[in-house]
């Protein structure tokens, strides 16, 4: 099937009102190209604008406003959003289009095909980059478009926040390397952004907490949190965290944070626990 001059004229008229919508688009995408059809004859093709959207199944906490980013061990989710032009007498829905997905120049056959506008692909290995391309065309090969994106694998970002009984987790303020905390007893929550996990307490995540170089046995129910009580201490603490993943050997986070908590005292910490132990004074929680 080829489009005649009448349709050509009609589509040309439609370019003007659409130019606002696609202000950031290379308008040459709407120009007609000459191509060769399967029988060897010359036919016109219409460049098809493709939006290639990407995120990941990686973990982000509730109310997070940013995007879930692909990190090592997670999957990339992609959607090719095609914009078939509306041309008099011709209807072409996105579901009718044929999508050919390629990852690093290899066609991924099991996710390609008619109507396959969404795919899930593995993230690149650590420090690697994956080039993903999608070619889209109509069944009559008139509408043709493609889009590419280069995805660099990131490492999960592990940040520490205060978890207040009334406020909840203060996601607005990630703790830095040196912190002053007003309260004497404080719960700290570790949030593993972009990890391959369903929650911070996912059983695949292995937390190892340290307080002033003393190991703290993680809570079985809430291993991502650590409660520190400095009521009988000088309030100074160094919190250490090692976070690994049972099925992803590349996830190996090590972090330390210095804390100066509310009240002054005489000795070391009276208690520091996930509800399990006291590394200093032998006072059980």
């Amino acid at each position, binding site marked *: 099937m080829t489009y005649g001059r009448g349709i050509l004229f009609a589509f040309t008229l439609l370019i003007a009102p659409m*130019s*606002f*919508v*696609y*202000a*950031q*688009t290379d308008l040459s995408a709407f120009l007609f190209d000459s191509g060769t059809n399967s029988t060897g004859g010359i036919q016109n093709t219409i460049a098809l*604008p493709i*939006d290639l*959207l*990407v*995120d990941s*199944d990686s973990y982000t906490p*509730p*109310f*997070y*406003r*940013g*995007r*879930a*980013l692909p990190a090592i061990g997670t999957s990339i*989710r*992609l*959607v090719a*959003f095609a*914009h078939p032009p509306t041309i008099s007498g011709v209807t072409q829905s996105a579901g009718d289009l044929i999508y050919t997905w390629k990852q690093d120049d290899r066609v991924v056959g099991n996710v390609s095909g008619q109507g396959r506008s*969404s795919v*899930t692909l593995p993230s690149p290995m650590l420090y690697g980059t994956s080039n993903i391309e999608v070619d889209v065309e109509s069944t009559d090969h008139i509408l043709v478009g493609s889009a590419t*994106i280069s*995805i*660099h694998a*990131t490492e999960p*970002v592990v*940040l520490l*926040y205060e978890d*207040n*009984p*009334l*406020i*909840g987790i*203060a*996601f*607005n*303020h*990630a703790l*830095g390397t040196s912190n002053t905390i007003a309260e004497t007893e404080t719960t700290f929550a570790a949030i593993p*952004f972009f990890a391959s996990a369903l*929650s911070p307490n996912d059983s695949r995540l292995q937390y190892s907490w340290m307080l002033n170089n003393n190991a703290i046995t993680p809570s079985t129910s809430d291993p991502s949190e650590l409660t520190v009580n400095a009521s009988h201490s000088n309030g100074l603490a160094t919190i250490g965290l090692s976070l690994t993943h049972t099925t992803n050997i590349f996830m190996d986070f090590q972090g330390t944070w210095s804390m100066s908590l509310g009240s002054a005292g005489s000795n070391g910490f009276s208690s520091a626990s996930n509800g399990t132990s006291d590394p200093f004074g032998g006072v059980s929680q």
Partner: protein
Amino acid sequence: MKNIHIPGFVRLLVGAMVILMLGGLVGWYFYLQAQKNTITTTDTARGTGTIAPSFEGTTGSTQANQAIATQAISTDIYHPTSTSTSVLWQVDGAPVAGMGFVHTAAGENLNYVERGNGYVFSADPRIESAVRVTGTLLPQVYEALIAEDGSVIERSIGASGAITTLLGTVSSSTPQSASTTVTNVSRISTNQQGVDTQLPALSGVYLSPGIQSIVMNHTTRSLFYLTANAQGGVDGITQDWAGKKRSTIFSSTIRSWRPMMLDDGSIILTESPTSMFPGYSYRMDSKGNLTTLVRNIQGLTVLPKIGSPILLYGATSENGLALFARSTTTAQALGLATTAEKCVWLPGKSEVAYCAVPSGTTPINYLDSWYQGSVHTSDDWWKVDVFAGTAVRIYSPSSNNTSLDVRDPVIDSSGNYIAFINATNESLWVLRVAQ
């Protein structure tokens, strides 16, 4: 009786000692007065000259303390002789979950919800006072939305870890006991006469748990929200406040979306911003059909204008942030290094926006770090006239030794007040803007 003879020099010595002691006491008095004045001046300069909270007596109530505290802060810091013409007013120093302007008989008030208790407060920016209007305790409110009629959406995290969403209204009577009704577990204790009383409860219904994000038409209270679907993506659902007309109009494998609902009813869907990847933004009609607004912009943030094709959008690059305006076919760089979500459009037909602009350079991957709370900025307020192509700095909080990282700005319908949250500590502020 024999008189005791006291030698003259002794009497003279005692008299001199008495005079010296009195003189010393008088001197000590004036010394202490001078120290007290110094401390008061220092406290005032620090903004800590707030009257200590009281919980009993003629002013013993939370809302009274709130009013005293907020009034003192704004007066002390910015305009010691007036509370009605402050350029900047700290409405609440406690973390705030969300806010919105509501219509009252006296004009527009700013209603807001504190994160730690879920109480709804109403602030009058004209006289810089705030009072609590609900007595229902709901701790750990992470997000709140306010409709023009005062209805409230409060969102928290349930025991299962799923997000809970309460559609609440301020009751005019004692709350009913029902599984879907919020129990009035905390009531304000006293009024100004010290008599036990009760503030209205916040009653309502909970939507299904796990709603990822929700937006509301502030006028009609119609809702659009995204909730996880079985395929790991999200479904987009519309419904009215009463739970009727529920319809799934959108479905996506991508779950990182930021919805907006303008007061003209249009829904804007933008990919969640990141400095790492390009973003796309769409306008969605009532049937879920998407029309591209902006496409393929790194670090995309978008602010459409109601009833107009004009929009602001932010982008990131290795050079930092950049803000653009687009009214016709071309985008115009505004020369401001900020994001669209730090801006508000002046209501009406003018093409004027107010934007908070970080005063320093922002780091690489600023957007992601800002959303994670690991980076904060100190912002100045700018007035941008897109039509005239001008941008003028109108206020710098640093001139008052204040650093504000602006988040979620909203403007009243008159265009006189911009309310925003300081992302550093989630305190609530109002900026008075001159027209």
